[in-house]
């Protein structure tokens, strides 16, 4: 690209950037993102798609843009890694390349990379682990016994090379647990806990396994059963080991306390798609609920990108009065009050609600 073409392209980009600022809409974000993709700036396109999705979370074209930008970025990175590997092979580079192949679903590339990896570093279990991961992705998606058996074979090979490979033990334990081989799973997870007693996830799974019925040690038969039934015997370990939802009774009390403060018109607690409300809120489409969500999300993004850490409180003032938003983790508490209300007290109460939920003992 000569200088003149370069100037033209940059002018075009500037114009598109201004359009996005003046008329933010899914198609303006997509135009800008595509222009960056065509210039090979996939990381910038990814950020544009993320910004667009923060404003228009349900825009399918923006999701496609994000996917396209990510895929393009990963392909670019894979090419770079292949060039580096030609110059100086290392297990770390192979590992990164294999993970990229799994992400972009390039099975042929993965097979080639892992083959080369195991030839160059025969004592490294990484290549078998990466292959097992790819087989597991397909097994969990299609529930095909064949993919499951391949995953088991690869994990066996990885553990033969390095019996204390925690990543392989974790994958193997989870697979055996999900198909019902509880006793075999327990042995792997026990080894995992012995290797790292601080591993809370493994400890929780081990506790969970203690209360389950064993369906036998014949892994091939259990994989066939899963394929025939079209369903796994047990949910993912993360779901099984998840702590029970904290009681919302404390949240209700907290919202009542907030709504009782002079000048507070509306109060809400939002977690995921669930919301508890108090005060003058008609339904889930109330503008206050959307404003609280948007303010929390935009505040988080702003502070993270500006290296200000986590945004935990935001106060918005305007003709509507004051909207106070308090965020901790994935919980959000917000209140709308009239001008002159005791905002500090409102924020303190909101903070109590979200902090209570965070520690699982809401007031």
């Amino acid at each position, binding site marked *: 690209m000569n200088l003149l073409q370069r100037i033209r392209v940059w002018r075009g980009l500037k114009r598109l950037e201004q359009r996005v600022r003046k008329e933010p809409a899914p198609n303006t974000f997509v135009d800008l993102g595509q222009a960056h993709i065509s210039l090979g700036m996939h990381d910038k396109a990814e950020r544009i798609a993320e910004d667009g999705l923060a404003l228009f979370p349900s825009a399918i074209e923006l999701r496609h843009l994000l996917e396209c930008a990510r895929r393009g970025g990963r392909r670019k990175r894979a090419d770079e890694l292949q060039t580096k590997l030609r110059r100086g092979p290392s297990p770390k580079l192979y590992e990164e390349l294999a993970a990229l192949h799994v992400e972009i679903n390039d099975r042929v590339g993965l097979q080639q990379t892992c083959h080369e990896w195991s030839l160059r570093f025969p004592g490294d279990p990484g290549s078998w682990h990466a292959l097992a991961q790819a087989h597991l992705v397909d097994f969990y998606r299609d529930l095909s016994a064949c993919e499951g058996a391949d995953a088991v074979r690869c994990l066996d090979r990885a553990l033969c090379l390095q019996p204390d490979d925690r990543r392989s033990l974790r994958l193997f334990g989870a697979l055996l647990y999900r198909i019902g081989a509880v006793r075999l799973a327990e042995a792997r997870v026990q080894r995992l806990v012995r290797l790292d007693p601080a591993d809370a996830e493994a400890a929780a799974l081990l506790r969970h396994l203690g209360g389950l019925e064993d369906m036998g040690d014949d892994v091939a038969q259990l994989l066939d059963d899963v394929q025939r039934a079209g369903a796994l015997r047990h949910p993912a370990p993360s779901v099984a080991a998840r702590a029970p939802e904290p009681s919302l009774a404390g949240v209700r009390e907290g919202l009542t306390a907030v709504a009782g403060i002079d000048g507070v018109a509306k109060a809400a607690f939002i977690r995921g798609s669930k919301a508890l409300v108090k005060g003058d809120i008609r339904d889930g489409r109330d503008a206050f609920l959307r404003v609280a969500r948007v303010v929390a999300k935009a505040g988080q993004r702003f502070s993270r990108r*500006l290296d*200000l850490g986590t945004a935990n409180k*935001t*106060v918005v003032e305007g003709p509507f009065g004051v909207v106070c938003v308090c965020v901790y983790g994935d919980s959000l508490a917000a209140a709308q009050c009239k001008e002159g209300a005791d905002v500090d007290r409102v924020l303190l109460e909101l903070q109590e609600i979200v902090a209570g939920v965070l520690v699982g003992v809401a007031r």
Partner: protein
Amino acid sequence: MNSMQDLLVGLRRAPGVKGAAVLTSDGLVAASALDAACNADALAGLASYLLVTTGRALREGAMGGCARVTLHASHGKVQFVDLDGTNLVVLFDQFADPAAARREIDDACSRLRHLQRLR
């Protein structure tokens, strides 16, 4: 009469204030008095994103615009004040109380509005 820059430099003397800038709503820096560590362009772009997003949600909900936003984060606090077309952004350290500097900020805002009217 003070220039916009002088006003921002003066505002930095308020309790807990680390820096201040006047930004246009489309993300450009009109004037700034910030630490060398703070990238004014990045601040302008991110502030524009935050204010456009918040303003849009408020307008769509028929709640009007936003006059002031105060954000408390783990490593600092930021206050944005609408100046009719531009925004004043004031950065605080994490221990500061933005309410303690409210009088100075309001004073700077009225002077900045006056300057804008004269231009």
